[in-house]
């Protein structure tokens, strides 16, 4: 006779499919954890017996023993999938966000790397500073040998000259034999660091290079990342360059990837010179969003943003030409409704966000030092603060002036103070 309880339990049973490859990946992460823990113990013996045999060893972190993220950061991770197209959400397990490491940068500020697993077989990460919300990135099932990211968290001229930093090279490593990672520069210099490996369910190594100022200029910039094992053997090498200005259609000013038949003039403003500034958007074939600025008949630059799944809260750029300085941003997350601009001299302005994009002119009275924008704040429709970004106020060449002065970069260049 059938047990009626079996029937009753069968009705509420949840039948789902598992993911065996994820199990194997997690198991490999666990094996690595044990192997390196043992290697660390043996390393003590080696140091005692033969100090010269000491080699750089990566650090191992037990993910579930790491510091859990504070509530505001958990919410930031939770918001990452908001507005993502179906199938492109990262399915981040935000309640498991944990700190992997915290590093002090050359500018004296600290950055912490926070990581959360996702249900795509990978993880999401963000480098977050006390005054910087951080850019989010996610890996799904694939674990490339190196997944690097380059960020200039200062300002860069339209010609690609880095005016202020920090310049960061960070990312994850999927080759579990790797112990160290090297950043090679065009002038032959090499920075080297041990990897921070994180146990299952993350199962990846992490790194962060704060690129020194002497390596910001052309001819001295980074050009390659190299992975090495515990005996110094090269495992993998990947070219790495600062992203340059995108290719532009000379007629329209649109990035070459933009599908121009779908272009939309999203925002227009009349500048103080009487010329119209317009922010255009169009999708790219791979799903990215392209944007470009035009001032009258001139192209003002543009580019195609990262995929929507990585939308930051507050990303923006500053452009200038013909005596006009524009701030433009987006695509922002769907809950960003307005941007507040605060000036050094106490002035302020609120900029509406249209379909995730915004455009704003900084008027000439705010060009001089002491009067410039110092802070941008993203708010939602109820006025709640979502993110804030301090703005560099002492960068050379960011604002027009009558008398450019020599800038202290050793190349004899002149720029507005």
């Amino acid at each position, binding site marked *: 006779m059938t*047990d*009626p*309880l*079996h029937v*009753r*339990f069968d*009705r*509420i*049973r*949840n*039948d*789902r*499919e*598992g*993911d*065996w490859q*994820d*199990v*194997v990946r*997690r*198991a*490999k*992460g*666990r*094996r690595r954890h*044990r192997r390196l823990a043992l290697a660390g113990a043996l390393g003590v013996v080696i140091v005692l017996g033969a100090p010269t045999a000491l080699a750089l060893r990566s650090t191992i972190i037990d993910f*579930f023993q790491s510091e859990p993220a504070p509530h505001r950061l958990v919410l930031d991770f939770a918001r990452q999938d908001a507005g993502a197209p179906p199938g492109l959400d990262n399915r981040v*397990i935000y309640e498991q966000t944990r700190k992997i490491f915290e590093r002090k940068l050359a500018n004296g500020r600290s950055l912490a790397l926070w990581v959360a*697993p996702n*249900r795509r077989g990978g993880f999401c990460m963000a480098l977050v500073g006390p005054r910087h919300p951080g850019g989010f990135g996610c890996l799904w099932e694939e674990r490339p040998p190196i997944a690097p990211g380059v960020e200039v968290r200062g300002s860069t001229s339209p010609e690609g000259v880095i005016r202020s930093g920090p310049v960061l090279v960070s990312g994850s490593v999927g080759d579990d034999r790797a112990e160290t990672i090297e950043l090679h520069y065009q002038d032959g210099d090499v920075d080297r660091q041990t990897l921070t490996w994180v146990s*299952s*369910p993350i199962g990846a190594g992490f790194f962060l290079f704060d690129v020194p100022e002497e390596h910001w200029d052309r001819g001295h910039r980074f050009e390659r990342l190299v992975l090495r094992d515990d005996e110094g053997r090269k495992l993998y090498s990947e070219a790495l360059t600062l992203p340059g200005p995108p290719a532009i259609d000379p007629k329209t000013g649109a990035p070459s990837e933009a599908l121009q038949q779908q272009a939309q003039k999203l925002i227009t403003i009349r500048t103080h010179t009487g010329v119209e500034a317009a922010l255009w958007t169009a999708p790219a074939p791979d799903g990215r969003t392209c944007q470009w600025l035009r001032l009258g008949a001139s192209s003002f630059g543009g580019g195609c943003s990262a995929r929507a799944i990585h939308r930051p809260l507050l990303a923006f750029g500053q452009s200038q030409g013909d005596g006009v300085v524009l701030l433009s941003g987006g695509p922002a997350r769907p809950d960003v409704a307005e941007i507040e601009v605060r000036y050094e001299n106490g002035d302020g302005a609120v900029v509406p966000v249209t379909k995730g994009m915004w455009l704003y002119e900084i008027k000439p009275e705010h060009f001089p030092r002491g009067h410039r924008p110092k802070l941008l704040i993203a708010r939602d429709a109820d006025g709640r603060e979502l993110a804030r970004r301090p703005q560099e106020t002492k960068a050379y060449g960011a604002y027009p002036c009558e008398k450019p002065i020599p800038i202290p970069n050793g190349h004899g260049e002149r720029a507005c103070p």
Partner: protein
Amino acid sequence: MDEKARAIEELYRARYSRFLNTLVTITGSWDRAHDAVQETFARAYAARHRWRGDSSLETWVWRIGLRTALGFRGELESARLNGSFDPLLVESMRDPLLADALRALPPKRRLVVFLRYFADLPYAEIARICGTSEGTIAATLAQAREALHDALVEEELT
């Protein structure tokens, strides 16, 4: 792939859903239960050389599973498996009568019920997992069934 690895993979493919439905009664959410199952099998896979065959592979993995799920709930993984924790039916709205009736059972009896009806394990396996005798499990299940039957019939009649 070695023989033990293949056996663990086969067990995973055949029993994933049973592990999920059982461990969710401990973790409290489907997502955490999925993670617990993945971690369970990853631990078993990584430590498979330690399985000596003195219990069935499935019993061994179930013991890992219950301890892993406890760990996901923030409790000590060294907690005893014979009733020192408190599994509950999630999504109780799918069968409120059954959920209420289960809640009225002592935690140890509830675990045995879940191992029987969600994990579909025979008495002997449940006994080995819980570290008790087959007779104790048979008696525990008989008492649980009786209590559940009474509660469900009574509720459905009122």
